[in-house]
């Protein structure tokens, strides 16, 4: 009985997890293409030509959960070591999604570029101790908006 539950969870996790992941990647790639014109730069100090712009803090954050299949796959992987592909894609999705949300906020403000981008990652949730649980990524930076007066 216990094994049956485990198997059901595993299959559900695999199917829904795969579906969610491929949908998410599709949406990420589409939105990244649409916003390609707004440069995001992790440089601390902007170049002189942007020195007349207004600056404003922009942030983007997302919390993404693991699925059951990934948890099991990762715990098996931990026996032999090596790359944990299941978690790599999870973190990659979270990072890109957070950055996109920040970019969307900057775009809505009419920014020319976003400088000094920083990332902040943390795990949250009850099972943070057992596995990865959920991962939260925050991306923030300073949007440089052309000032109307100058």
């Amino acid at each position, binding site marked *: 009985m216990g094994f049956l539950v485990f198997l059901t969870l595993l299959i559900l996790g695999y199917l*829904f997890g795969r579906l969610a992941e491929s949908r998410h990647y599709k949406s990420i790639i589409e939105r990244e293409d649409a916003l390609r014109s707004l440069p995001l730069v992790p440089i601390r100090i902007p170049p002189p030509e942007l020195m007349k712009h207004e600056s404003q803090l922009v942030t983007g954050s997302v919390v993404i959960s693991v699925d059951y299949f990934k948890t099991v796959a990762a715990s098996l992987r931990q026996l032999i070591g090596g790359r944990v592909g299941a978690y790599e894609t999870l973190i990659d999705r979270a990072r890109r999604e957070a950055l996109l949300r920040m970019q969307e906020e900057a775009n809505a403000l009419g920014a020319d570029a976003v400088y000094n981008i*920083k990332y902040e990652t943390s795990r949250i949730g009850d099972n943070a101790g057992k596995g990865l649980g959920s991962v939260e990524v925050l991306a923030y930076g300073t949007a*440089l908006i052309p000032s109307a007066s100058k």
Partner: protein
Amino acid sequence: MLISNMEVVPGKRITRHLGMVQGSTVRAKHAGRDLMASFKNVFGGELKGYTELLSESRDEALERLQQQATALGANAVVNVRFSTSSIAAGASEIFVYGTAVIVEDR
């Protein structure tokens, strides 16, 4: 209030540093959301409830940072950094800090 995570403010000159200001908040989500989250741990996907909660707490922390900066007579906060830590199973702390400054137009 101008808030930026750069150490310079484009088009402006920092005339005075007023020291560090900070804001923090600890939030927990209610049991229903926690239950939903554990379902999501099976299926995967975004936890929208948590995303909202954390962005609300971040706004709250920023609000407190601004209050402190205003009390010091600052008109801008530069070099802002965020930090998150989970202090208990269901609660997380959002901490934001920066340097309160007075800026003038160049």
